[in-house]
Each structure stands twice: as structure tokens, then as C-alpha cells.
């Protein structure tokens, strides 16, 4: 079955179909406890990471805290 394509932080990426958000973060090598995720302009609550499925053409923002004034 072919990969799906999504947009992450403005870059287009591919992912295996049927991944949960947890799986997708893992796939990207990111620690779920250290980031926050917005999916199609909606906050993805951390509690839902397993439940949320990544769909084709999803627009995903993954952020974390950096130094700032």
C-alpha cells in the first residue's frame, strides 16, 4: 500500500498510511512529551495522540519551546 503525503511545518513529507499521531511523531524521531501539535489548524491534545490518525494532505505544525525574549 502506498505512502501518504502530508505537510509538516510547511515542508511536504510522506508517511506510511494509517499511522496514529504518536506513530507519526516517532516516525519523525520526535519525543511526544516535548512538543505540541496542531493538525489542520486544530490543537491535537496530547491525550489523543494514539487516537488521532494521520490522513493524506493533513497540514501539521509541530512546535516546541526555544529561547526567546
Amino acid at each position, binding site marked *: 500500500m502506498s505512502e501518504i503525503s502530508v505537510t*509538516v*511545518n*510547511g*515542508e511536504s*513529507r510522506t508517511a506510511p498510511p494509517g499511522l496514529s499521531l504518536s506513530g507519526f511523531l516517532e516516525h*519523525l*524521531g*520526535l519525543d511526544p512529551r*516535548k*512538543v*505540541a*501539535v*496542531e493538525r489542520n*489548524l486544530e*490543537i*491535537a*491534545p*496530547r491525550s489523543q495522540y494514539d487516537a488521532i490518525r494521520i490522513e493524506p494532505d493533513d497540514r501539521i*505544525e*509541530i*512546535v*516546541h*519551546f*526555544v*529561547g*526567546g*525574549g
Partner: protein
Amino acid sequence: MTHDAPLKVAGRDLSSRLIIGTGKYETYEQNARALEASGAEMITVAVRRVNLSDPDKPRLVDFIDPEKYVFLPNTAGCFTGEDAVRTLRLAREAGGWKLVKLEVLSDPKHLYPDMAETLRATEMLIKEGFEVMVYCSDDPVYAKKLEEAGACAIMPLGAPIGSGLGIQNPVNIRLIIEEAKVPVIVDAGVGTASDAAIAMELGCDGVLMNTAIAEAKDPILMASAMKHAVIAGRQAYLAGRMAKKTYADPSSPLAGLI
């Protein structure tokens, strides 16, 4: 000797009246050491996209412990209320905190806030249940509007962000303080220790700074200088300074000279 109450912001007690930013340091490690030297309990942080190409590069939270310090997510780089709300929703999810610092900027030349948009964003955020500390101009009229809108702290700029020019308009800061019932924290403009002392002597409840420490030749030592400067200014304000005199007044008794 008068004793000082801790700074109370949105129900939180802060033993230090110094708040520092976490930008512009050479490394997070230097940042962490400066933070320790400053004695600050609250730091501002920015929300940015993770680096997908290099997920393992050093992270702020690996050097500064969110359990130990109050993280204050800011909206630096936002130019509309919508940007700010979207950014802070993510921050709340990432950190689980409702206490945030709002800044809605206008022209990058001076990085002054757009006060009309800042007020609108404040109202939007408060409706969403955030506790909002607001970076603002030193206009006492807008400071009052922000307080009426529910801001939990008023943060007038002392001078343009990163300029280090010191408090430009003590009259306005004083007018804001006289009217405010929430904490007034000078945000931006401090360049050296005496600038911070002057801000506190005006009666500010606290000072927020970043560049003055991060861009000092020795940031760790400057952080310590700022710790002492904020205490000095606060104590001088509480102690009540002597009156200025136009002429001299001897310190030694005139009587009893041989």
C-alpha cells in the same frame, strides 16, 4: 526595616522581581548559568517549529527545568491577534500553562506593540481562559484599557527592544504605576544595572530583560549585577529616598570644633 511582599502575578508568588528572556545566548548552557546567577524564577520562552531535519539538536528544556522555573511563553513575531492566539494555544498544549506573555508587534524597526491589536488580542486570550501579561507602549491610557480588559500584568516598554537605551519616559511609567492595580513590569529597554535600579525606584513591581544580560561581555556576571540592581532599586523605593537639595548640607556636626 520594612519587609517586602513577594511579587504576585496571577496568584503566583515570585520571590525575585527580575524576569529574564532566554534569547541571544551563545548556548543554552550559558543561558542556564546566567539564569541561575540572576536569581530569576520566571523566564520568557518562544514557541517555534521543531527542526525536522535534526530532531536531536539541544533543547531549551534539557538545560532549564520547567519544574524549577516558571516558563512564560511569548508571542514574539506575531503581528495579529489571531497569530498570537494560535501560538499560545500551542504553548498551552506544550507546557500546560495558562500564564502567557502577549506581544503583538508592528514595525520591525522599533518592535513597538500595535496597541489596538494588542488590546483586541488580550480580550480574545482572556475569553479563552489565558492569564495574560501584556507587553505594551508606555501610554497610561492604553495601560488602563488593558487592565480593564483583564490583563494580569502591564508590561510597558522602557525603550525599544534590544536597544539598551534605558527608561526613556519615567513620567509615563510613573503615571501607569499610579493608576494600576495589577503589577507593572518594565519590559525592554534596560541596558545596564542602573537602568534596572531606576525602573524599580519608580515603583515598578518588576523588570523583564534579555539583551542587557545576553549581550554583555560576561553574561553570567551581568545577570548577577541585575539581580542586585533590582533588589537595590526595590529597596530604595520602599525605603523612601532623601529629598534633593539645591545647596550643600554638612554631614558632620558644626558644634564642638576645636
